[in-house]
């Protein structure tokens, strides 16, 4: 499935769905396994999984009567890549701002004292 970043960001806005993804980062899980730690009904978990699946963040396979879920690497990477690019660009700017602020200090001292 093509990652859809808008749907993905929307899917990630829910804390339960983020927690489900964090659980899936540890490995594949069934609806039953996911429902347990979250103290949710299986239909409630299934609804969250549907949102995550249509956002391209997870994929499901069929194994008998079960449909275990796993992280969809393409979808996760598309988001990671964008957010980390933004984070890196901001981090570099702010590291430079630290230096600018350090240079401003003597000047501030003179003005104030």
């Amino acid at each position, binding site marked *: 499935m093509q990652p*859809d*970043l*808008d749907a993905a*960001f*929307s899917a*990630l*806005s829910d*804390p339960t769905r*983020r*927690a489900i*993804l*964090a659980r899936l*980062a540890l490995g594949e899980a069934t609806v039953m396994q996911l429902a347990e730690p979250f103290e949710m009904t299986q239909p409630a978990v299934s609804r969250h999984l549907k949102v995550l699946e249509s956002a391209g963040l997870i994929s499901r396979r069929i194994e008998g009567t079960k449909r275990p879920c796993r*992280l969809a690497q393409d979808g*996760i*990477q598309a*988001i*990671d*890549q*964008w*957010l*980390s*690019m*933004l*984070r*890196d*660009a*901001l*981090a*570099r*700017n*702010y*590291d*430079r*701002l*630290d*230096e*600018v*602020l*350090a240079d*401003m*200090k003597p000047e*501030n001292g003179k003005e104030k004292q």
Partner: protein
Amino acid sequence: MSKITLTTEGDRHIVVTRRFAAPPEAVYRAHTEPKLLQKWLSGPEGWTMPACISEARPNGKIRFEWTNGKGGGFYLTGEYLELEPFSRIVHVERMHLPDPTPDNHVETIFQADGTGTLLTLRMTLPDAETRAAMLKTGMEHGMEASYVRLEAMTAAGHNSASQGAPGA
């Protein structure tokens, strides 16, 4: 001290926080005075901001121009909407890549934090097309996309929930 946090808020916003070892007045000035902005908002490695307009008053113009000194460049325009000296700035900005991206509405909050400042930047999550253009521009400009692990991202999501929005 220098740890940056970046979290998504709902499906429309990105919230960034960062602490600085200088009082709000200094950090605010570094965000509004052209001579200071040019020093730190200089763009990717090897780039500079030769032209900087920052009219720090309501409806004041913003225009930042970046160049790599080899004929490559891009610029940003915007307007200041609200300014509360040393504590808060609200402005809109758009990048020209070269087509203008949709307006990004940005709120910057400067809070005293001990002898330093806690900076909170709240911006609109750009639409899919803009994100793609930013990513492409970032790649062209040699920003290396280091992959953040999913655990880190989801952990950041939890942090934002537990810390609460500053000022909330």
